[in-house]
């Protein structure tokens, strides 16, 4: 051992391996920590859904509800949070699932929390979706409001939320499908868009509920 140490050429003492390893670990920790801090500053709550950073004011809109009454959504004026999604009552797949899973999340909330949340289905098929049809649909799969907005206002509202839809498979004036985007937008009691979930995320009821509870408790006023 002592022979070997004598064979090292003179010069600055080599840095011990554990110091190098420590420095390397420190560097990695700093980079990861920095990324974590940055992410937290961008969105202090680790949302399961896609967060709006920063939250943006939700667009207002109006239409007719499932009872045929005029209905107006004025973000920030309801005192409650609002979950909005775009669908239609001839939708046999995505929309029933969306409504059913939102209902599961709603049921997972406390009674007090449930009172602070509205669920709104905006029809992307105002031609066929009468208030009666909407009422039957939203009450069958959960508890929501079914809002009909005539064109061209509907396309404006959809665009303002980033939603899209398109009539396809036209077999007749009353026989067609509507392709549509599948996000659920959560507007807080302060009227800000906070988070959106794709319908495929909804089966994770507990995680969606966590996002929802946070937004209910922390509206941006």
């Amino acid at each position, binding site marked *: 051992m002592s022979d070997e140490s004598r064979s090292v050429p003179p010069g600055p003492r080599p840095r011990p391996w554990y110091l190098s390893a420590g420095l390397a670990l420190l560097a990695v920790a700093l980079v990861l920590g920095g990324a974590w801090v940055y992410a937290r500053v961008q969105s202090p709550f680790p949302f399961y859904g896609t967060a709006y950073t920063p939250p943006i004011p939700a667009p207002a809109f109006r239409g007719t509800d499932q009872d045929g009454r005029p209905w107006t959504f004025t973000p920030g004026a309801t005192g409650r949070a609002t979950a909005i999604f775009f669908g239609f*009552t001839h939708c046999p797949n995505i929309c029933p699932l969306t409504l059913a899973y939102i209902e599961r999340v709603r049921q997972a909330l406390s009674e007090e929390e449930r009172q602070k949340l509205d669920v709104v289905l905006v029809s992307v098929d105002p031609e066929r979706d009468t208030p009666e049809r909407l009422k039957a649909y939203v009450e069958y799969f959960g508890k929501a409001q079914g809002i009909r907005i005539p064109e061209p206002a509907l396309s404006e509202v959809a665009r303002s939320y980033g939603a899209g839809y*398109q009539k396809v498979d036209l077999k007749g004036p009353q026989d067609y499908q509507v392709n549509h985007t599948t996000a659920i937008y959560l507007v807080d009691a302060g009227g800000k868009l906070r988070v959106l979930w794709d319908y495929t995320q909804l089966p994770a009821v507990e995680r969606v509920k966590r996002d929802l509870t946070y937004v209910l408790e922390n509206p941006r006023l």
Partner: protein
Amino acid sequence: MNFGPLLGALALASVLLPVSATASSASRPAPQTAQTTVSAVRLPLVVREARVMAVPPTATETSAGMVLRNLGSKPIVLTAFRSDVAARNELMTMHHDAQGRMGMVTVKSLTVPARGELVLKPGGDHLMLMGLKRPLRVGERLTLTLVTADGQTLTVRAPVQKP
């Protein structure tokens, strides 16, 4: 760059891989047990989680899903299905367009891979019952008959369930 060796390897692989695949499937025992699992047909399919989505009485179409497991060594190609309650029964899949809009499209066939599964569910491949002749009751069991490309059938009893 010289692609010679690469092309050679690919050519060799294209010859050897199908051979080895055939060899491995031939070496396994034929799935005799499958025929006892499914009644009345020779199709080596096992069905689970069959259900028809309950919809409000105002609705005129609904979807059905199930998991089909193929115990056999050959893919099983479904080309149609039948039901008594709908005017049109179609095999469908879901797709996203470039703008992120989701919609259904009719497909000519759906394949249950050899020794694999085909999952039929609302957000993916599924069965569509269109032009419902009567409202469906939650809990009732509908008979769906799956039809394969070579004309064999498999009868599935599927309960009507809310999602």
